């Protein structure tokens, strides 16, 4: 029977064509073709004042974006899960946003920096894992979840509430620590203790228990393996970011330490890394501080903000790299901006004046 292989090839091709056609829908809009960052913003810092063990590669501000997207994305899911079941969440669009934005940030640095193999491999691993996870979820939700989903997709079962809580806790956790450290195992028993066995929407309850149990077990197992792999392949990450400022303010923001003051009044500060870097850096900017070095760099620095759709900033202190609509919050978009360490304070202040939220500062 030759009919089946022929029809299969035809249908697969048709599906690919349809998928790519849908891809034209604007999920990530680059500000321009190729690199949009002025060349001199990439000039390396020849003699960093920052101690060598606090210096990190300058291209990492861009390369950390895909990683952080995998925090922004669960954050969006957690937000969405408060009012809707996650059955209707646009998982596949997030997959596209991930890979599209990875392509754009790589476009910015590929001419200036040598290929950072270790970092790219890490991005591929987490990117592919997430793609598989989201694809499985999208498939499952389309085929099964959709059939048990309550009308209007409201959160009515204990299980969907449990999911909302779990998703939120998970996001809060991964803002500070690697995802594989999350305690999925204890959630498995809580899934059964915190939800009723019987009740209205019984089929939905069973189906969600099945789905959540599967997710927790798989993630617990996968997390365990990744933890082993990461320990073997990568060094333990530093949890602080060293910053050189022109002048330390009289009162330091919380979680910030003064390490050293130089004769010209400039100072070496130790700020928390990752999620808490943004509030600390913003507080310093509000104090009128100018940054000289962040993790040993004084070159280009990436930050993302969440702004209304109609916000189109045009300032000499920063450039827009790309924008991404926040799909579950119509009217809101993520704007990726690139500035330099020296212009960061002005950029922060301008953005805050515009009442636009800084989502994250990518501190290398």
């Amino acid at each position, binding site marked *: 029977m030759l009919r089946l292989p022929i029809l299969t090839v035809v249908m697969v091709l048709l599906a690919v064509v*349809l998928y790519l056609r849908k891809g034209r829908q604007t999920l990530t809009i680059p500000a321009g073709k190729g690199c949009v960052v002025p060349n001199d913003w990439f000039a390396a810092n020849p003699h960093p004042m920052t101690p060598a063990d606090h210096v990190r590669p300058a291209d990492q501000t861009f390369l950390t974006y895909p990683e952080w997207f995998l925090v922004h994305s669960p954050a969006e899911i957690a937000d969405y899960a408060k009012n809707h079941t996650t059955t209707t969440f646009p998982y596949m669009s997030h997959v596209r946003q991930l890979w599209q934005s990875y392509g754009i940030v790589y476009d910015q640095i590929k001419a200036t920096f040598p290929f950072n193999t270790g970092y790219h491999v890490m991005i591929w691993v987490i990117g592919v894992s997430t793609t598989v996870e989201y694809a499985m979820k999208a498939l499952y939700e389309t085929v099964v979840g959709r059939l048990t989903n309550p009308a209007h997709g409201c959160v009515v079962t204990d299980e969907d509430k449990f999911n909302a809580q779990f998703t939120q806790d998970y996001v809060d956790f991964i803002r500070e620590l690697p995802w594989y450290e999350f305690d999925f195992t204890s959630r498995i028993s809580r899934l059964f203790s915190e939800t009723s066995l019987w009740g209205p929407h019984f089929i939905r309850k069973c189906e969600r228990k099945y789905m959540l149990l599967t997710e927790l077990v798989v993630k617990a197992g996968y997390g365990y393996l990744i933890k082993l792999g990461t320990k073997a392949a990568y060094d333990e990450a530093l949890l602080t970011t060293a910053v050189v400022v022109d002048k330390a303010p009289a009162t330091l923001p919380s979680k910030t330490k003064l390490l050293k003051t130089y004769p010209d009044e400039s100072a070496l500060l130790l700020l928390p890394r990752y999620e808490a870097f943004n509030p600390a850096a913003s507080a310093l900017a509000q104090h009128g501080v100018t940054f000289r070095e962040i993790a040993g760099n004084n070159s280009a620095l990436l930050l993302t903000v969440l702004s209304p759709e109609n916000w189109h900033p045009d300032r000499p202190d920063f450039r827009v790299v790309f924008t991404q609509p926040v799909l579950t919050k119509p009217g809101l978009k993520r704007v990726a901006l690139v500035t330099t360490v020296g212009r960061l304070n002005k950029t922060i202040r301008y953005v805050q004046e515009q009442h636009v939220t800084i989502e994250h500062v990518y501190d290398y």
Partner: protein
Amino acid sequence: MRLKDKLPLSYLLFTSRGRINRLTYWTVSAFIWSTFYVLHTLLNDFIGEGATYILYPLLLVSLVATATKRLHDINRSGYWLLIVLIPVLGALWLIYWLGFKKGDNRANRFGTIPNEAADYLKNDDGSLIPHLKTQERIINDVTHLNPVVVADVFRPTSTEELQEKVRTTTGPVSVGGGRFSMGGQTASPHSLHIDMRGLNQVIHFSKAERIIKVQTGIRWCDIQRFIDPHDLSIKIMQTYANFTVGGALSVNCHGRYMGHGPLILSVRSVEVLLADGSLVYASRTENPDLFFGTIGCYNGLGIIVTAELDLEENLAVRRVYKKLPYTDYSSFFIDTIRDNPEAVFHNGDMYPPAFTNMRAVTWVKTTEKPTVKTRLMPLRESYPLERYFMWAFTETMLGKWRREHVVDPLLYLTTPIHWRNYEAGYDVAELEPRSRTKRTYVLQEYFVPVRHFEVFARKMSEIFNRYNVNVINVSVRHALPDQGSYLAWAREEVFAFVVYYKQRTNDVAKNAVAIWTRELIDAVLSVEGAYYLPYQAHATAGQFHQAYPNARKLFALKKKLDPDFRFHNILWDTYYQPDNN
């Protein structure tokens, strides 16, 4: 026609019967999911989200149906799908079962091995004549070129029943088995057609004496299945195992065996039902006239009801080959193959359209482990690759060139090792085209004394090229002489030229075939050879008698044993009493 054949895709997607292998499962899954995606997207975009719900019953049914078939393949019932309800482990287990676990390598309670045919290709039981409520049926052979209306079809299940029928009826009788002859040798207009396929029992078998006695409606493949567990193999048979023993005996067939020849050389005795209803035992020593007048004599004297056949050891054989010009073939054959005790099968393929190059293929005895998993030829539901090659060789530009210089060299890259039984177990189905309505594949065969090989090869090539005959292959085999049979085609040591060609089915084409066939017969007669009779009866009476000088003796015997001319078929109608029609 079964749903399976008529709507294979619907059968696959919406019924849970039967088995499918891993490849089919992956393919059909890709088909289901991509189709679902396409339809889902289209409905969602053009009609609305609600419309997509109509896809779910179809999706669910097809997923369950295909998964059930795959579970059947590993001998589990479809209820095992419920294992998916166990989170994680159930799903993983199911993924392994459905996607990766190899299917049973034998038939199980859910069916035969996927893509494996349940049985060898068979001809029908005689097709009904539309709008007629009589007993008349159309009896046709495998080529579909020879439809004959017979008065009735009788299917005996015991020798006594058959005897009774012959005794109590008058009028013409025609006899058929597998009906793989190609010129109407199994039917005659308005005769009572006896379909022998019900008489298919093994009557006696002795492993020690290497002998088997069978009813002649049995097929060679059935005998192979019977004797294979005893490590025995049929001494002489043709390459294709679909035929019935009775049919093969009546045409005195041959195979590719070395050191043997016509089938008659492996027959110890037969029992023949004569026109008067008597059953007569015949061997070389007892009733030799009947023995030599029935084997290879196309049911002229009576019906062969049982036969006692020689068996041989079932050895492993390894394929070796040599490509050479046809001018070197006879000396190569005589020097290295003819008396080589290691050679079990041999044939030489002549490449059309020039017929100057040959590939001599020999299967030699080996103690190595066979490269095939099964001892007998596994049967397949379809032969898409074979069908494609046949089409490409016969219908495309440079098709024959590609076969000689691209396809065959690739096919001969490996060195297969088969069992003797395996290598004699081919299914005619592999030769079947999609349809035989417009074009059909037909065989002819010419027997040439060994010393005249080259002369005939040249003449044959010239005739084929002059008439633009679409020859697929000419396979040369060797046979030792058969000095007994009245219609012996190997009166001395011969090479058999088996010609496989393609022809159109319209009258003009049939006529053209008749013309070049007669010319080819003249060519073979000029080298003291013979042509083979199970094919279309294009030869003139003069050619027939020149090729078969003892035919008149057989005719005399027929007059004596079948005085009322009861046993008919196209051959007898043409050459014995042509005025009778």
